[in-house]
């Protein structure tokens, strides 16, 4: 139990990851799936940020001419860089998913992926099908 409270942020991050993961996997609504995806990715960023933070140190931005040049004054900058990269990746993936959802909604007028699958199966398919 002590471990849990010592690693409070990490524990919360893993729980959030689980919530996001199950939402993405099991929810039938496309929008909620995308929200799940974002919760999952954000949980990983929380995990990274919590791991990169060192108690009592400053953000790794030496501002001003008289700022300290000592490594020991700053937190680990690598996880912050990873979080930034990760955010860019997850934004683009979210955009693609949202665009796909819009196209599905325009065609089938529902956001329920199971319903959409059934409707798509009922459509007669021909190789030359084009719009």
């Amino acid at each position, binding site marked *: 139990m002590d471990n849990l409270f010592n690693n409070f942020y990490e524990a919360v991050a893993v729980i959030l990851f689980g919530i996001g993961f199950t939402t993405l996997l099991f929810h039938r609504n496309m929008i909620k799936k995308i929200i799940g995806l974002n919760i999952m990715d954000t949980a990983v960023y929380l995990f990274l940020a919590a791991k990169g933070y060192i108690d009592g140190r400053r953000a790794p931005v030496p501002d001003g001419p008289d700022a300290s040049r000592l490594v020991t004054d700053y937190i680990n900058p690598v996880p912050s860089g990873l979080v930034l990269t990760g955010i860019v990746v997850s934004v683009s993936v979210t955009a693609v998913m949202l665009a796909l959802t819009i196209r599905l909604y325009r065609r089938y007028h529902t956001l329920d992926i199971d319903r959409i699958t059934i409707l798509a199966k009922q459509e007669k398919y*021909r190789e030359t099908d084009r719009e």
Partner: protein
Amino acid sequence: MEIVKSFPLFNIVICLICGVLSSVLKPKQAKGLSLVLTGAAGAMNAAVLAWVAREGQYTYMMGHFPAPWGNEIRVGLLEAVLAVFFCSIMFLSVLGGEHYISLDIEESKGNLYFTMINLMLTSLLALIYTNDLFTAYVFVEINTIAAGALIMIRNNGHTLVAAAKYMIMSLIGSGLLLIGITILYDVTGHLLMVNIHSQVAALAASGEYQLPLTVTLGLMSAGLAIKSALFPFHTWLPDAYSYSVPSSAAILSSLVSKGYIFLLFKLFYRVFGFDFIVDHKTPNLLFFFGVAGMIAGSVMAIYQRDMRRMIAFSSVAQIGYIYMGIGLSVPMGTIAAVFHIMSHAASKSMLFLAAKGLSDVSGDSKDFSDLRGSGCRSRLAGAAFSVGAFSMVGIPLLAGFTSKVYFAEAALSASRGKMGIAMVALAISTILNAVYFIRAVITIYTPNEEAASMPENCHLPKTMAAALVCFIVLNVFLGTWSNVIEDAIRIGLSTFS
């Protein structure tokens, strides 16, 4: 420093730039650019391959920071062989299907297809060459987006649903991979594969952090297995392969899943070290799912009445073969798995293109009842389909036979329990393969009276004919000169970690 050493980096950057450039070009220009680019990338990688074969492997520093801090590219024999191979398969798939790309996709979006093709090539090359785990993750996501776009660019309901399913499964896989990389970074403090490897070895010696490392290994293997459609996670695969444009289907089946499998090889050999993996029993799990996939994929393929769905389900079985090879946890098994990556890529992309050629002369139907006699109507597509089918079944002189021989050889050197299971599974799966592939070949050569009105010996589009001939040659080459490639893979793997 020799210029050849920078070629892998040039390749990746040029492909990325051309991807952006394609979005403002006209479809025709974009197509030309993409084909030239893929050819050029293949030539550059061939130069790298020649250099590496002569001088040995090297790591290439990106930017001004040395090893533990900066980013790196690593080029060895195995990477170079696969890069050349992936470029040539990509080139032939695009060339073979280019006629249908302009037919199936709206005029205004034609160039965007080639943007995605270029991005796909970028991400594949980066996945092959990178030595940094987080870079690998970023390119895995680029690969996912490009693959999703390649499926959904053909605008009908089926492809949209297939793309949605693909994206969801794939994003679950990348989520698991990302959290795995994060935990691994926190435990070892490094992102470069070589540095992680030394830290993992030190941790294994001291016995610390074994549980987090096991969890990480599980998360990352599961993530990559989901993304490469290992058996129980294959549900997205048949729709995605059977409704997309023929080029997309060829690229998705032969390259996309293989890029992830290669990343898994890297994880096993270079990040964790194979002894560590075997100690943690990961290969046993992959072996189990691989064998299950070999049987289940073939059984499901038998029940398909749609030709392209049948080929898609056969892919599930072939991915099972590759995982079974890794799961045998002997060096020969991995060699067989890498060889099967190549032979499956060469046969499957040809099958998808040939199936399109066959359905083209049968009134655009993929149903077996309509495809009767199509092999007589289009001789070349029929011949290519037969070669691909025979290769998948394992007829001597063709690529698939050689990889089955390698798998059998690997099974003989594995532990006794695995040897029995692998041999029996190979035998059953080969028979099942024969059932549906030979049936398909017989079907396309059975004369069909009703279709007498259809023209005799139709001509395929010239580009497709050229691509199919190249694919046939490639298959025979892989089947007959396999020892050259096997040697290259063996040497590449021995220096891989």
